[in-house]
């Protein structure tokens, strides 16, 4: 039986194995390639998307669990890149290779949605679940701070 959910405000119907992790449904079946595979075992955060507004690791979440859910991927955060987190990421020139950054941005935007003005320690803790092999950690932390300031305005 097909699984219906909403992805980036569009209704979709997935008629595939219900055990398929959301990550692969997005990438292989919905052609949403912004969400990345890094480990497949919920360790790196590269695959982070929002499920009903909550940052979630899509590599270990079967689509059977997202029936009727609202899913937001990096493509849906703000398609033209005007979300404060995206703007801050560009302004501070965070990306090196860029591969982990969709997951970082979805985690950061999720963090700021819950807590628009986090302390430095809350930023460090909130972002430490995401690996960046290039080591952009300092700029990630600074960019979350900058995005938080942008939200204030």
């Amino acid at each position, binding site marked *: 039986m097909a699984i219906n959910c909403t992805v980036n405000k569009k209704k979709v119907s997935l008629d*595939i*194995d219900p*055990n*398929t*992790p959301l990550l*692969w*449904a997005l*990438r*292989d*079946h919905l*052609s949403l*390639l*912004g*969400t*990345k*595979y*890094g*480990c*497949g*075992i919920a*360790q*790196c955060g*590269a695959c982070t998307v929002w499920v009903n507004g909550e940052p979630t690791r899509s590599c270990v979440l079967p689509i059977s669990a997202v029936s009727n859910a609202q899913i937001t991927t*990096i*493509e849906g*955060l*703000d*398609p*033209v*890149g005007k979300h404060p987190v*995206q703007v801050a*990421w*560009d302004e501070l*020139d965070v*990306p*090196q*290779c*860029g*591969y*982990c*950054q*969709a997951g970082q*941005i979805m985690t950061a935007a999720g963090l700021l949605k819950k807590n628009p003005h986090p302390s430095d320690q809350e930023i*460090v*803790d909130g*972002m*430490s*679940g*995401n*690996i*960046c*092999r*290039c*080591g*952009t*950690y*300092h*700029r*990630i*932390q600074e960019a979350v701070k900058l995005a938080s300031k942008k939200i204030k305005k």
Partner: protein
Amino acid sequence: MKTSRRDFIQKTALFTGVFTLGFDWFSADASEMEVVASAGRFNAFLSIDSLGKITLFSPNPEIGQGIKTAFPVVVAEELDVDWAQVQVEQANLDTKLFERQLTGGSGALKHSWERLRKAGATVRKMMMQAAADQWKVDVNSCKTSKGVVLGPSGQKATYGSLAEAASKLPIPTEVSFKDRKDYKIIGTRVKGVDNKNVVTGKPLFGIDIRKPGMVFAQIIRPPFGATLKSFSAEDVKKMPGILDVVSFKNKVAIVGSSTYEILQARASLTCDYGSDSPLESNSTHAKWFDEGMKSDKAQVMRKDGDFAAALAKAVKVVEATYECPFISHSPMEPMNFFADVKKDSALLAGPTQVPQPAQKAVSDLLKIPIDKVQVEISKMGGGFGRRLNNDFVLEAAELSSIIQKPVLVMWTREDDMSGGTYRPAARYHFKAGLDANGEITAFYLRGVGLNAGNSTRQDNFPVGAIENVLIESFDQKSAVTTGPWRAPITNFLGFAEQAFLDEVAEAGGKDPVQMRLQLLAKVISNPVGKITYEPARFEEVIKQVAEKAQWKKKPGVHQGFSVYYSHLSYVAQIAEVKVENGKPKVTKVTAVTDCGEVINLSGAENQVKGAIIDGMGHALYAKLNFQAGVASPQNFNAYRMIRGNEVPVIDAHFVNNGIAPTGLGEPALPPTGGSIANAIYAATKKRHYKQPFN
């Protein structure tokens, strides 16, 4: 400055729409023809069309080192345009157009610095000439600013309006470059040209490649040293979404229409392996290190004076052994590649640091003429040297030729971590003989590497400052595949040497910074044998870092020093450690780098900070174990990567000397393990001899 014809394209046809003559390098791709038809391609690196659109082409693969931004910055500077005016495009592999299209060895800027400046300066001169002709004035009375030629009596013409006329002029053979005090872009903070696409999740990477009719595949590879005896394909072939199961070169490939279906099929496939000789385990490697240390077959890499005689006379002898395991590169984007092999042509696309060798290897393997093998370069989710080995390209091409379909071969994280071409494991033994004043009179190093080639860097400092030196290397062949890993060899040798020199300084009663400076003073006044580094540049980074980090001037702060020269750049570091709950914690690393002219300050800082974090993370945690030819761990749950809550403050400085730029993707890594280990020693009196520390 002479302009060589080689860098420039015959451009007479550019504005006429006749592209057949002199344009064989464009193959017969209609879409590319159109692009060229509407754009005045002045040379390999840039085009300016009559509407004023300026496009800069970046030839080298981008792995996160920032080359796609840095190269065009240099061209734009000499062209004298506003950075906001230009667009940057990744050029595909084109061996006729570009001389060096690869990423590795931190060598791109050193190679291309002259070339890039010439590419910009030449076209700037042509624009001025075109304007001078039009205004009937002397070209020397014209100036440029922000993509506009300015005439002596206030005339103005944009490059776009001059493009057609300029393109018809002869290419000047003499051009002059800007004085660096007039630089407007070089040395500033320029944001990555791909940032916008990255933050909006555009499909930029190899793993995102989608082509019509494409299928997916994963490949099961044998343990190191093993051969495939049999595998159970029949049931697997019937599983949903599975299109084929084929075997080649001891590997089994599962071809399917989606990743998850292939993963499911993989879980039910069993392979039987055999081997002629025992498969390698940790104990094999330990035994090989012991044997290699004793072997009389080590190669003498360097000999100055008489080490043995000098050691016999030494008042004090310091000795230490250091060891590092095989480690994986683990770029965030696992290996993958797309191939579409037809009877007599092939299209390859994806993340390789070395597209040209990929083209050649595929041409050789499949007997397809090299000019029929096309390579598209995608952005890469990191490389760290792993994508210098084209094994994954060849596999994809071979599989595509077998199944006769366009295919994207994807490696899981487990495949990537267990699939080889690792940083080689190595063991080092150092000995130093000191005289009564604590001066080093004798210095010995033997490196034993497993598939490491020469595991030493025999001409590197402190060699050149010591009268009696013996450096030996012993390489043991292993079935475990190895390859360059960010700062090859020096990524661990740098740690071992800098940690050892810290012990030597202590034994000789010297301050580690002062000891380095005294040794360098000796190299300057009276060098021993051949030296490959510039001692004055070494001195400068050392002095600056000592000042910036307030070496030994911060009461209660435990500091460790190191300095290393690699890829023609010099990096000195001071790490600081504090003890928290009985455990040492690295709180700060100050680094001073001399990589010559800094092209993009933002990118340069990223490289230095990234390399230090990389060096620290791997020094603390990384290790692969081997059991019967199989590497583990295979994923990030047990193979720990450094995380954002563990990184120290990093204070990155650059020497401002205007020397031609040298490498920066790697040089900040080798000194890192040493500065940290030496700071940990200062805090805890415990020395580290092995990586990982934890």
